[in-house]
């Protein structure tokens, strides 16, 4: 585990002790820990001198700030209309089969979390998904299987 008090200290130093820094700080924590725990929210509240409710209220507004523990790799499959038309269901089904989890779940080894998301601006290359912010598009079952395989392989190395 990284030293999280230090992490928040560093983030506050980087972005400044002001309300405008809240989102960058929260995103910084997410980058390290994949989700925002109760403890981190309180630490951020303390660091910025705002209430816990304000941090919670703001954090929960944004879909990319997860409040539940997530896997090492977060897969977000676009579910909005064009990706939906172009085979999003097949993408989801393939991932489910590969990982043995449903949407919203995390693999038991903590490696993958499968989520859906709204339009990610890849409609010209639909269907598409993000893994940890990296774009994968023009997906089909085979491509998805290969991508997952690649991620699994990297874990072993």
């Amino acid at each position: 585990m990284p030293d999280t008090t230090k992490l928040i200290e560093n983030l506050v130093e980087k972005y400044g002790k002001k309300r405008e820094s809240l989102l960058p700080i929260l995103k910084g924590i997410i980058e390290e820990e994949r989700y925002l725990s109760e403890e981190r929210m309180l630490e951020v509240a303390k660091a910025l001198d705002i209430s816990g409710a304000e941090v919670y209220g703001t954090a929960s507004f944004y879909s990319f700030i997860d409040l539940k523990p997530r896997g090492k790799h977060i897969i977000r499959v676009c579910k909005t209309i064009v990706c939906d038309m172009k085979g999003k269901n097949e993408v989801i089904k393939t991932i489910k089969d590969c990982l043995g989890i449903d949407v919203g779940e995390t693999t038991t080894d903590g490696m993958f979390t499968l989520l859906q998301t709204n339009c990610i601006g890849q409609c010209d290359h639909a269907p598409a998904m993000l893994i940890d912010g990296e774009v994968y598009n023009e997906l089909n079952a085979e491509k998805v299987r290969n991508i997952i395989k690649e991620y699994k392989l990297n874990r072993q190395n």
Partner: protein
Amino acid sequence: MITLKINNTQVEVPEGTTILEAAKKIGVEIPTLCHHEDLCVAGNCRVCVVEIKGRPRLEASCATPAENGMEVFTHSAKVRNARNVITQLLLSEHAEECTLCYKNGNCELQNLAEEYYHDDEMFIDLAHEREHRIDKSTALRYDPSKCIRCQRCVRTCAEIQGVNALSAAFKGKDMMITTFMEKTFGEVVCTNCGQCVVHCPTGALTERTYYDEIWEAIEDPDKHVVVNTAPSVRVALGEPFGLEPGTIVTGQMAAALRRLGFDSVLDTDFAADLTIIEEGNEFIQRLKKKFVDGEEVALPMITSCSPGWVKFIEHMYPDLLDHLSTCKSPQQMFGALAKTYYAEKKGIDPAKIVSVSIMPCTAKKFEANRPEMKSSGYQDIDAGLTTRELAKMIKQAGIDLTKLPEEDFDSIMGESSGAGVIFGATGGVMEAALRTVYEIITGREVPFRHLDIQPVRGLDGVKEATIKFENCKSEYSFLEGAEVKVAVAHGLRNARKIMDQIKEGKSPYLFVEIMACPGGCIGGGGQPIPTNDEIRMKRIEAIYREDAGKPIRKSHENPEIKQVYEEFLKKPLGEKSHKLLHTHYTKRNRY
């Protein structure tokens, strides 16, 4: 000035006036939900939309400034249709359990539903899908299924109190009003002040009620049920019975309590007078320690009567708790004496006494349940009811308050001075304390006309006064010529201003009064709804009328106070006082 037409009537208003305000000026009532005169504009509920000639969309009248030449229609067919749809939408996400609701009959959504009656459900019921999680904390109760997400509570907690215990969370269909991580009020930084309750238009936020337990105790022949009523209750209790805000109903209230079956009807004002004796002497003692003995002592001393304020400082300024007077609040002083002094005098087993207080306050419920409040050997106060709960009990008993004769409080612990009464208004504790402290030090009455210390009265957020001590008695010669600066704040956001000064070591004051609620207790979280500045002012005026009409206006002249010291306590700040009337505070989490 700006001239516009509302429903074809010309109206002239100053620049910056909203359409809603302009309409009010000519007697046009536009319905609102998220709007509250105490709070900033939200424009969320959209109930107050109006039609403006030349604009394709309807505009929220609470958020739209009047403009020259505007032609506004507040109840056109287009507006009424839209308002109807919006009302039905709100009802579809609101658990419609009016007959099971504490706020039945005093609900702004219910009023709107009455105006925009629809004979069938227009939309699909969404309320039943929502999680039914009711937070029943010691003081407050929150039922999200009745929440219409107008965010009045959120704005109250932020703008008036600066606590921010509540926030909107999530978005879209999941958007809700909640505490941090949906914890109970008992688990988060909440002062229990109940201002959110006073500002909630529906039954989502209410106090936790305890009157069923009190009825039970009253009906139990083995129990001796003692009730005490706070100063501000007597100037507000008339409101739920249709009386004008500011009507004094002290006598009727005592009569009603007796008819409800309380065994003894006593007065918190007595304990308020007692607080002044203890607190006044504590203040003088602190001054002496500081200026004569050269001891380290926390100044300014700050009053501790308001339990919302006390919990606030415990959370927000845990390092400054030394500044709080160690005096318990009048409620808790009363409780400690009820099961000792009163029990002794009356020859009643304190175990059989049930001590109830009627308070303008929700935080008093929490205070009564503090673990340290057991100095009589029992829980000093068994239950704190709000003014609203008392009104409910009176109605349940079929009593018409307005038709009752005026009766007196019982004795002992039923007599009070005008100084005790003014505890109910912001500045009152300070004024009462100064009336006594000045006289202790100089032997003369405080040098204000009719004893009215005007600078500490009124609704300004932070008020200041300077008292100069001259020709002091010999034992207080160290104060000769001293100009003592005092301050009064109400509303916790104002309290913060004073506290930040103290924190920075820049406070010019020696004595400070702080009340959690705007206007002081008369605007408390347990008072009748609605409460706004106009109503606060009327209640305050009534408090000072009651004071002016009292034969005794100074706490130290209250004969029952003299008696309790002679017969029981012996002397202020004495051993018994220390045990029964003083307390300590707890450092709490800031976030």
